[in-house]
């Protein structure tokens, strides 16, 4: 697969990166995604360190602790990491021409990804119920330092990540349907590799977000 592009007429072009277009295109697109999350995370860092106080984990809520449910999200993080593993397994399966393995692991990836989004929605609803929103309830604003700002950054960053996972799940469903129709072969499975790149990237972003938003 990693051969030079062949132009019509059978002539070989300049070797380029020796990566096929779709994969190269995805890498390039991910570079822009890195910048997008850099913008969001950069804003978070500037806002957080521009103020004096911030909600910290490991502190009771009444003493300025975080309103976030860390354990639930830690479990969610674990699931997303698992979905990366199943994604790797799916790709490994089709590299060996294992159609059954490909389908099984793709379905697992879709389910794990969808579960991640589902748990995130549950988390949002619970938080909103507690009054934690971009405009916090008065009770919460009284104990959580800079609650509005915390809410603004929290929902924007995790929300955009959740949107990315959701889009990923939709694309993954499409790839899975194609896999069930037998469109991928041992030789030709660029689609699986390309969606895999995106999936691992989204996973990686989450590990960073989880660390800086929930853990520190």
């Amino acid at each position, binding site marked *: 697969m990693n051969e030079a592009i062949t132009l019509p007429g059978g002539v070989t*072009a300049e070797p380029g990166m020796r990566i096929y277009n*779709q994969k190269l295109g995805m890498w390039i697109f991910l570079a822009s995604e890195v910048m997008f999350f850099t*913008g969001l995370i950069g*804003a978070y860092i500037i806002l957080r360190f521009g103020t004096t106080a911030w909600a910290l984990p490991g502190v009771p809520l009444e003493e300025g602790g975080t309103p976030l449910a860390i354990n639930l999200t830690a479990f969610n993080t674990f699931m997303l990491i698992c979905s990366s593993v199943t994604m790797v397994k799916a790709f490994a399966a089709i590299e060996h021409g294992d159609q059954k393995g490909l389908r099984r692991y793709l379905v697992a990836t879709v389910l794990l990804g969808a579960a991640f989004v589902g748990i995130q929605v549950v988390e949002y609803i619970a938080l909103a119920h507690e009054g934690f929103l971009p405009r916090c309830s008065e009770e919460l604003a009284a104990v959580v330092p800079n609650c*509005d700002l915390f809410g603004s950054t929290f929902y924007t960053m995790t929300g955009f990540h959740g949107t990315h996972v959701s889009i990923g799940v939709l694309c993954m469903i499409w790839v899975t349907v194609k896999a069930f129709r037998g469109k991928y072969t041992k*030789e030709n499975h660029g689609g699986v590799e390309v969606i895999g790149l995106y999936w691992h990237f989204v996973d990686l972003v989450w590990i960073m977000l989880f660390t800086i938003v929930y853990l520190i």
Partner: protein
Amino acid sequence: MATAAAAAAPLADAHHEELSFIRKYIFSTDHKIIGIQFLFASLAFLVLGGVLAILLRWQLGFPGEELPGVGTVAPKFYNSLVTMHGTFMVFFAVMPLLVGVYANYLIPLKIGAPDMAFPRLNMLSFWMFIQSGIVMTASLFVEGGAAGSGWTAYAPLSAVPQYTGASLGQQLWILSIVLFGASSLLGSVNYITTVINMRAPGMTLFRMPLSVWALFITAIIALLAIPIIAAAVIMLFFDLTLGTTFFLPADGGQPLLWQHLFWFFGHPEVYILILPAMGIISDVIANGSRKPVFGYHSMVLAIIAIAFLGWITWGHHMFQSGMNPLLGTSFMISTMAIAVPSAIKVFNWLGTMWRGNIRFHTPMLWAIGFVSLFTVGGLSGIFMASNAVDIFIHDTYFIVAHIHYVLFGGSLMAIFAAVYFWFPKMFGRMMSETWGKIHFVLTFIFYNLTFFPMHILGMAGHMRRIYDPTQYEFLQPYQPMNRFITISAILLFVVQLPFIVNFFWSLFRGKKADINPWQDNGLEWTVPSPPPHGNFAMTPTVYRGPYEFSVPGAEADYMPQSVPPSGSQ
């Protein structure tokens, strides 16, 4: 193999399928048609941006007086005019005219590829651009008026509807920018992949024309800068609609955060607007001078250096913003550094003309105009780069003069050069040389009459974006100059008429163009005018660089890139 099949797909389409009118000209995946679509759309936006400029200039030249047939300009409307003129010109005229039109049209043709790497994404990119343009245009007519916070949309002015009086207008502005960003992003992924992976045999990186180099580097800048503005405007949108507090100081937000994000995008954006122009001009000057570009490698390095330095200079827009004064010093140094590669480019263009045999065809005239006026814009930039001098001239007409010398005297001159130069390839007919030259001379004159006096206004301390200069005693003596500028601006607008007429007349009635009317070396001049779907009947092989003009001993004074060396066959 998927790859080969994907690359061959557009060709297969062309050969095996008669395309309907809609598939061929409207929802086309052919990079040439998409380039032409961008050309028509962004020229229309250029006219719209010009109309907005005339309206705001009217108010400055004749404050409070009635513009015949239009009426007076109210202060709120004036702010919308300022905002929308900048927005349309930057995002919907100059950027798509350079990148949307010429990256699309030229990259595959000039590197010997049948189409872009992702033709469908390319089509999607164009239609997202149209959507964003429609949204932005619609925002002119909504209740509360269009956005009035400047094209820089400084928060909190832009983040609270009561501050400008425009609510829906500002939201549509943001929506449009997000759509525009998505369109640009798709384009960039396409251009970068195409240049890396789809060059014809022999088209090594250092045999690429400078226009392709510049468009390639520009695509990389856009790829990395656009997401930043997307993130910023989305936060702004949330502040406006969902009650977040990113930029609202009363609730812990930071107005300077907006400025940092905006200019971290905004300064690279400036280079998105000028680098492709520099590349195009290099091609045209070499062709017009019948000489190789002077110092090809240093020209490439200068493009890369400017692109790199562009990332660490954003703070010079914020010298007076309340940023730490020590940062002011470091941003001055990085900004000043950009003068060096810019100077190299200007001197190399002069070096290219030196001992040439210059043909004054219309594109060459515009290219010479570019060198002359870009020099002014580059030199006036040094005033702003000096943090001390900037204290006085920041936010005055000196800045307005500077940006117009770079973006109009620079970028737009290059765009006109490009339109005249590649028109025969795009449409198979020549534009009228006579009218092209008349257009150039009149534009050059009225351009300078309009924008040069703005330097003097700026030195007098004339603030930007003020509604009525006569309100200030110290500016009253300059009112005749303001009036002069307004009249010149109107004339500058009027003398674009020959271009419009020439363009459309030539489209249908122009002299038929042959394959290579300018006797140029690029691969695009080896295929019919206009080139067929799929571009090349046989993939060309490239034997030399793009600027082999007047090679000693050669028969003609040009040597196309794909002609085999004599004696090799």
